[in-house]
């Protein structure tokens, strides 16, 4: 693959090392208290919980398995996985940003400030940043941006520059611009409504980043097409990358094998569990879904 910056040489604290992928994460099932829960637009909600450790120790790219409340109409049975949107260990806070799509997220949307809910986590393997990287590109769409926001902050905290390409249907559904802006990221907003989200345009932006030396690593989440685009460019330009994937889950703990996806590993197809071997994977091994 000839990658100039190898993901195998990352710092141990956030490495998706074989060890981290095999050893259980230090997860716990804790009771969080809702301290804020607002609508960001018609579909997206922002949930802020006060929760005991280890919840607020979660890292960018990790996720929680949330017990969604029952309502008169919706009675979700299984938990629902949600990426960490922000963790604040000092204040014991974890935050989620989610899209209301079905039974589970409708149940979740019903919870009121002051109520408690169970959250299992932190789960899975988060993003890694190569210590040699100076500048990264994150490319996300929809709620996928929520997953990338804490990564951008982690990068900034290490002095790594961030270019954030934020794709959305309309200006109203671009998430987390403020989060990316606050860390001084270069922000490119691309929209369906003005045609700028067209893959050809996104490709032009990515190539420009690479040409300007601002792309030591690629990161993506939230769109199959954008993942494929970034993967193709990453291969062509020898830029390593990571992708945060999703899959229906049950346990979240690597036990049930519900959540497998196929990966292309040295010519072979290999099934891996998104919950415990991911949800963050090497971009070059990911397969379209």
């Amino acid at each position, binding site marked *: 693959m000839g990658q100039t910056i190898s993901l195998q040489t990352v710092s141990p604290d956030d490495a998706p090392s074989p060890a981290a992928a095999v050893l259980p994460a230090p997860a716990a099932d804790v009771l969080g208290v809702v301290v804020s829960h607002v609508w960001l637009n018609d579909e997206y909600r922002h949930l802020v919980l006060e929760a005991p450790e280890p919840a607020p120790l979660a890292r960018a790219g990790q996720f929680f398995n949330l017990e969604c409340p029952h309502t008169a109409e919706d009675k979700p049975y299984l938990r629902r996985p949600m990426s960490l949107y922000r963790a604040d260990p000092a204040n014991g806070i974890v935050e989620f940003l989610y899209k209301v799509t079905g039974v589970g997220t409708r149940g979740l949307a019903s919870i009121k400030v002051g109520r408690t809910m169970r959250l299992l986590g932190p789960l899975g393997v988060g993003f890694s940043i190569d210590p040699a990287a100076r500048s990264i590109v994150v490319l996300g769409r929809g709620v996928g941006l929520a997953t990338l926001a804490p990564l951008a902050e982690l990068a900034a905290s290490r002095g790594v520059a961030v270019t954030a390409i934020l794709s959305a249907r309309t200006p109203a559904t671009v998430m987390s611009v403020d989060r990316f802006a606050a860390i001084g990221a270069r922000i490119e907003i691309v929209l369906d409504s003005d045609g700028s989200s067209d893959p050809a345009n996104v490709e032009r932006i990515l190539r420009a980043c690479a040409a300007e030396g601002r792309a030591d690593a690629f990161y993506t989440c939230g769109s199959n097409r954008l993942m494929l685009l970034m993967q193709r460019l990453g291969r062509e330009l020898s830029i390593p990358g990571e992708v945060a994937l999703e899959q229906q889950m049950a346990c979240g*703990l690597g036990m049930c094998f519900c959540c497998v996806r196929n990966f292309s590993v040295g010519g072979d197809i290999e099934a891996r569990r998104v919950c415990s071997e991911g949800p963050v994977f090497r971009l070059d091994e990911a397969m379209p879904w």
Partner: protein
Amino acid sequence: MVDARTDSHVPALGGGGDAAAVDSRVRIGDLVLRNPVMPASGTFAEGLAPVVPFERLGALVTKTVTPELRGGNPTPRVCEVGQGMLNSIGIPSKGLDYFVAHTVPFYRQFSTPLVASISAPSADAFAAGVEKLAVPGVAVIEANISCPNIEEDGKAFAMDPRPTAQVVARMRRATTLPLWVKLSPNTGDIASVARAAADAGADALVVGNTILAMSIDIETFRPRLGNVMGGLSGPGLKPILVRMTYQCARAVSIPIIGCGGIATAADAIEYMLAGASAVQVGTATFVRPTAMLSVIDGLAAFCARKGIARVADLTGALHDTDMKVEAHDHDHDHMSEAVS
């Protein structure tokens, strides 16, 4: 917010007794478990260790392993159906050699007995597999015979007494380890299958596996599982598998381990009254990872309140023969307030 999915709503299971004084131990053949609660195969693995102290469980049960490497089924492998789920995991397996080399050693750090679940496509393969499992750290073999039998056109062994007897007899000759046989509810006559397994040398029966089911997305006209059909698990199984536990307990004299929809101590008690000596908790662990701990504590609390010295005394304690007699003995205004 109390959650009905896993909290018991039986009024005060505990209270009014010293739960610590209750003897929680149960005996399955020659094996004594510290309590009757263990995970169900396929719903438990190393990943639960940070959340549940494995030393508190009655036993540990691994995901079914097959002799050879297997890939499992296409995704989606899971879908929610009401208060329950379907799965079509298949049995992805790294094979028995990997299992013996990596999985068994991991569990040796715990004193809790390890139950190794195994499956194979023929009686011979089952026997060969069982032989390989005779390694330190494996305390019990659980034979998952709900899998297709290639010698019977892919019909599951556990569907009929005859193939059940054959495969269990072959395994019995191949091992001196305790042999538990896990039955399938996808049969019309579980009692006959249970008898066949017991007669062929099983030391205990697990009753039972998931029920074959299907769910369709009416918007897309597609099955909601990649494999079209899959196994139903969760609370909806309970009344069916309590019935099968009851039927099996009356049909055989070896211990029964109840399984299917157990989420609370009340559920476990129902199985034990029906005749189970121990129970397995499956899907409930996905919903509440600490569910097994609540079941363990709730069983002791219930016995304490009822003045029952040993949890094991619940096994088969159902009053089922004297129904009509007692209905008249009793002066119970059971529909209204009784005149004291």
